[in-house]
């Protein structure tokens, strides 16, 4: 394990050290450096402190753990690998995600999981322990977003306008979402036994990562949001 003290390094120098390391890295005193581990394909990076924006963008197989909060654009256009945040994240987490997994213990900001997409074996997963801000899952084309609502500040589990433009994949909320307005091109149904095999590993892994007990969460009720047709945003055009 290579320990890198980051408080005197700019992001370019820090990334060069991470890339040239032929082993797992522990970054200490991270002071908001951006672009950490962008495009990284192997090894594990653990971060103490607070990483800056665009952590793990285009991640391609490496695993990142942040022992605290992260900022905006975590896992932007991520292709493979894992990001674990033991705190909250900012806006635009998992933008255009196309593979891999992101587990967040706390809350996410606006625009979580926008334009997530999937194809055959590439099935991205975004699990958020707390609540999401407005515009979550906008333009979702594939993959799974799971929001557990374990936050305790009394705010609603989702902000405004979730799932606008959704044309693939699914978004799952724990508990009652009757107070939330979803677009008319989506449908919602209560989680059934048939959905459980897909949900179980996500909850089990979340609990193992962040020290929760899985049984009460597995027994809870969930609402699944999906697009209501294969082509819900087929705009009516006339050839001219």
């Amino acid at each position: 394990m290579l320990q890198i003290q980051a408080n005197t390094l700019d992001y370019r120098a820090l990334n060069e050290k991470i890339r040239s390391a032929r082993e797992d890295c522990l970054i200490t005193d991270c002071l908001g450096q951006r672009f950490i581990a962008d495009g990284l394909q192997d090894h594990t990076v653990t971060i103490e402190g607070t990483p800056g924006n665009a952590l793990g963008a285009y991640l391609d197989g490496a695993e990142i753990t942040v022992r605290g909060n992260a900022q905006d654009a975590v896992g932007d256009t991520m292709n493979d690998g894992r990001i674990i945040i033991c705190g909250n994240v900012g806006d635009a987490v998992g933008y255009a995600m196309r593979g891999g997994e992101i587990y967040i213990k706390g809350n996410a900001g606006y625009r979580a999981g926008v334009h997530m997409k999937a194809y055959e074996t590439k099935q991205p997963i975004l699990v958020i322990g707390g609540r999401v801000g407005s515009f979550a899952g906008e333009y979702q084309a594939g993959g799974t977003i799971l929001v557990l609502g374990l936050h305790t500040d009394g705010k609603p589990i989702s902000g405004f306008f979730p799932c606008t433009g959704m044309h693939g994949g699914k978004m799952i909320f724990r508990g009652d979402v009757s107070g939330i307005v979803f677009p008319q091109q989506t449908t919602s149904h209560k989680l059934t036994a048939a959905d459980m095999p897909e949900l179980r590993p996500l909850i089990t892994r979340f609990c193992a990562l962040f020290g929760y007990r899985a049984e009460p969460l597995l027994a809870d009720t969930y609402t699944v949001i999906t697009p209501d047709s294969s082509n819900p945003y087929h705009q009516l055009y006339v050839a001219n």
Partner: protein
Amino acid sequence: MAIDYIFPTYEVVRDPNRCTVCRICETQCSHQVHRYDAGSGQMLCDEARCVDCLRCVSFCPTHALKIKKNDCAFRQNANWSQKSIEEIYKQASSSGVLLSSMGNPQAYPVYWDKILINASQVTNPSIDPLREPMETKVFLGKKPSSIQRNPDGSLCTSLAPQLTLSMPVLFSAMSYGSISYPAHASLARAAQVMGTYYNTGEGGLHEDFYGYGENTIVQVASGRFGVHTKYLNAGAAIEVKMGQGAKPGIGGHLPGMKIVGDVAKTRMVPEGSDAISPAPHHDIYSIEDLRQLVFSLKEATQYQKPIIVKVAAVHNIAAIASGIARSGADIIAIDGFRGGTGAAPTRIRDNVGIPIELALAAVDQRLRDEGIRNRVSIIAGGSIRSSADVIKAVALGADACCIATAALLAMGCHLCRTCQSGSCSWGIATQRPELTARLDPQIGAQRLVSLLTAWQHEIKEFMGGMGINSIEALCGNRAMLRGIGLTQKELDILGILHAGE
């Protein structure tokens, strides 16, 4: 319904003395216009389906066919043209958004045709390109602001990554999905042979074309289709698409009908589902966010690739370009309002954006005024139709020009503007296998190479005539241009004098 009837735009005229009823027109037409009538032993046609693609005309062995504009006419009206009236009928019967292909065909001014080029005589002799070498090579990328020297006095020659072009022309972005596999193959091969670049567009890069990586620009658009580290590292440069001239400000929508097989796999969208590209990148809401995206791409590719930011030419393009130049981008690509597209709403295509000539001049001048012109190279596109347009663009400030419509024409396109139907009879703007088989990439590539080679010769002739032997000496050299029939305001924006001055 009679109220819906729009008379056919075209008439198919068949010379009965020449027609041998060989039925080649029937097999070649992809819009089912021609059919053989066994009863009469004659060819019949449904001219309502004709789109004037000229496939049948080109393939008829006896040249028996011609396509004419149908002279059935509304009453003459300078305000309500036939097009305006028919568009109302179409919308009244369908409630649909009018969808068109290729670039703005309306009669707005074409500034290229109002600009004239200098030639040397007497006091500054022209150069004979036959005798003296003409340098048409250009390098696109960030240039240093000053000479740097090493401690021992030698020149520090490390530069930001550059693209090397044998001549100031490259191919614009056209996505795999909007055009066919053989069309992409032709562009890739031609770029490799000519020593220039082609652009993947936002459909991702088919794995078969990774071998052409050194001549490929990979695009990162708002949908991020096909974007992963191998893709980013495969190309010679990465282009962030913020907008395109044909449809500034709006997103893209590839109809589900074109999302089949390899297109679906490369874009990671379920087959048959529309592929939607949102209007803004939803992670870039400010110039600071753009800078963040540019640097995230640089970090992910370890600063090996120049980053291009492509924008549509719109109002205040000069200020926008200044922001992009300060965002860390290495190259700005500006796409004028005449730029082509596989499909865009007609109204947006015809009414939004500004001409590339004016945008280019404004951007080049602003960057020079601010002392940051060296931070970016400029690529101009959005209707470059000839080597003369290239020379004028370079003189107005472009480091290189990109062509798309011209490239498609070289591959056999006849500009019928029906790409959105997915039934291109020339095998270019379609995914139907029986049609894409019509485009042989070897021939397509050869014709593209021939086009660029011809333009390169013409460019050298222009340069020699002006007394310039290196294209870089022409870049931004407004003194080589004069306007004709332009207002003072237009001359001021272009930064050129009037012919005779």
